[in-house]
């Protein structure tokens, strides 16, 4: 498998299948892990970071879950390829920024498993950031995969751990379980009915964090919200997941209620917005990625509510990703200027819808 093979497929998490898939786009869990006695990436020497990468590579080779995985060194990737990995949620924006902190970028890498279910960022903020990404509302399955990989790598890598404070991480906000679990929710009707702020406010009070599509510091485009746990010490992995699941179930119910109410009270208005969005996407000759995400959000709502029954959810999911700047350029096979991208994006949408 090579990086270019990824472009022709979509990751498992975009399959559009799984529990509550009409509201929960994907479920993700990540674990922060560090090697004992080796300084954390930002503080270590290039030799330290090289040692980390070498040991992770060895661990990956001996793993049955990670068999056939792709190991990519960030410094060997073009800027386009790095952006491509960010758009696919395989690496963070921080991990992709090669120039910003050049000194600590030398041994950054990412391990990508078959079907992109598992990925490991090496030498990001922590030595390892293990991630499992699944389609739909599927935290339990994600956890069962991730905990097995963690157990498999543990004896080979011997993690920094204190019985009192759990797994030790570069930032004290991640110690304990080192776990951040999140679900990507599509909540257009809570936004339309102006209830979203109330819901997000309540959620934050109950120990969750809400973020945009691409994680920390990004805004909520396309009505997508990433909800995750805040605290990682003093709670077990199961408690974190239970709590998150319980609260997300309530958010799902609120969105479902808002969808029902809108359908009952202003079906025509809703249908009009959805079909107009579909019409614009089908006819535009120049379209920015922001406008695309906003309109695709409405089209996805139409599919989810059975108002646009001719389209498949998986197709809409795929378009969310393939219309992003780096994906378009990878599809085209060459760098494109912003205006060329707008034209190429519009063409892809016209042909697909």
């Amino acid at each position, binding site marked *: 498998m090579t990086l270019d093979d990824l472009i022709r497929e979509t990751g498992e998490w975009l399959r559009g299948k799984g529990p509550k898939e009409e509201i929960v786009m994907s479920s993700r869990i990540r674990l922060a892990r*560090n090697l*004992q*006695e*080796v*300084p*954390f990436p*930002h*503080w*270590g020497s290039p030799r330290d970071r090289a040692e980390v990468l070498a040991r992770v590579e060895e661990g990956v080779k001996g793993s049955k879950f990670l068999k056939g995985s792709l190991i990519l060194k960030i410094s060997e990737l073009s800027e386009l390829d790095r952006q491509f990995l960010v758009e696919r949620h395989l690496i963070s*924006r*921080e991990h992709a*920024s090669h120039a*910003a902190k050049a000194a600590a970028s030398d041994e950054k890498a990412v391990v990508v498993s078959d079907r992109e279910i598992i990925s490991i960022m090496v030498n990001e*903020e922590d030595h390892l950031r293990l991630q499992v990404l699944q389609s739909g509302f599927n935290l339990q399955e994600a956890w069962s995969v991730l*905990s097995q990989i*963690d*157990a498999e790598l*543990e*004896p080979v890598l*011997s*993690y*920094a*751990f*204190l*019985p*009192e*404070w*759990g797994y*030790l*991480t*570069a*930032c*004290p*906000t991640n*110690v*304990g*379980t080192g*776990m951040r679990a999140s679900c990507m929710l599509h909540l257009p009707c809570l936004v339309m009915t102006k209830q979203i702020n109330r819901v997000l406010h309540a959620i934050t009070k109950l120990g969750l964090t809400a973020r945009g599509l691409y994680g*920390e*510091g990004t*805004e909520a485009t396309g009505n997508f919200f990433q909800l995750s746990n805040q*605290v*990682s*010490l*003093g*709670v*077990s*992995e199961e408690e974190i997941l239970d709590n998150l699941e319980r609260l997300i179930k309530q958010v799902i119910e609120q969105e479902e209620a808002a969808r029902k109410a809108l359908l009952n009270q202003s079906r025509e208005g809703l249908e009009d917005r959805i079909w107009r969005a579909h019409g614009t996407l089908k006819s535009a000759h120049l379209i920015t990625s922001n406008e695309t995400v906003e309109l695709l959000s409405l089209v996805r709502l139409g599919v989810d509510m059975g108002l646009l029954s001719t389209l498949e959810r998986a197709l809409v999911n795929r378009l969310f990703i393939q219309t992003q700047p780096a994906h378009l350029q990878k599809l085209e096979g060459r760098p494109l200027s912003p205006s060329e991208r707008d034209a190429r994006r519009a063409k892809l949408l016209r042909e697909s819808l």
Partner: protein
Amino acid sequence: MCGKKEATVHLTEIVNEESRELHLCESCAREKGPPEIQDFALAGLLAGLADFGTKLEEGAPGRLACPRCKMTYEDFRKGGRLGCGRCYETFHRYLAPLLKRIHGSTQHVGKRPEFGKASAPAEEAKGAEAPVEELSRLKEQLAKAVASEQFEEATRLRDQIRALEAKPRKRTTKG
């Protein structure tokens, strides 16, 4: 800055005592580089928390340095990130109140590495097993005592745990 969109991000930059105000729209702000701003804010926030937690402590811990990676407490306060796993032991007394503030707890209750699976010499493993079991039993009791607000009991258990942990002075994970 671009003169096109409405400015929603307002920044004040202070360079050489001269302050300059910037009014940016979302997209310009992003181009100007929000990751730095974010890192900075987080570091500052953590530093603030760390300060608050150590106000009662005597003397300046700033010079205290980790024997493994040489990070000083001052470095941590500036950057908001520790240097290595050993730092957690070196700065233990200063980190405990900080962790309490962030997580509302200072006791890990989740999964732990499976000990003994690694190729530890048999006798070492035998000697270590009993205290490890006792420790985890004590820690469970401690968590319960804290949860039910029995603080005297909790203090007694904590001291017992500390004594046990101090005895072999061995790192629990095995390489």
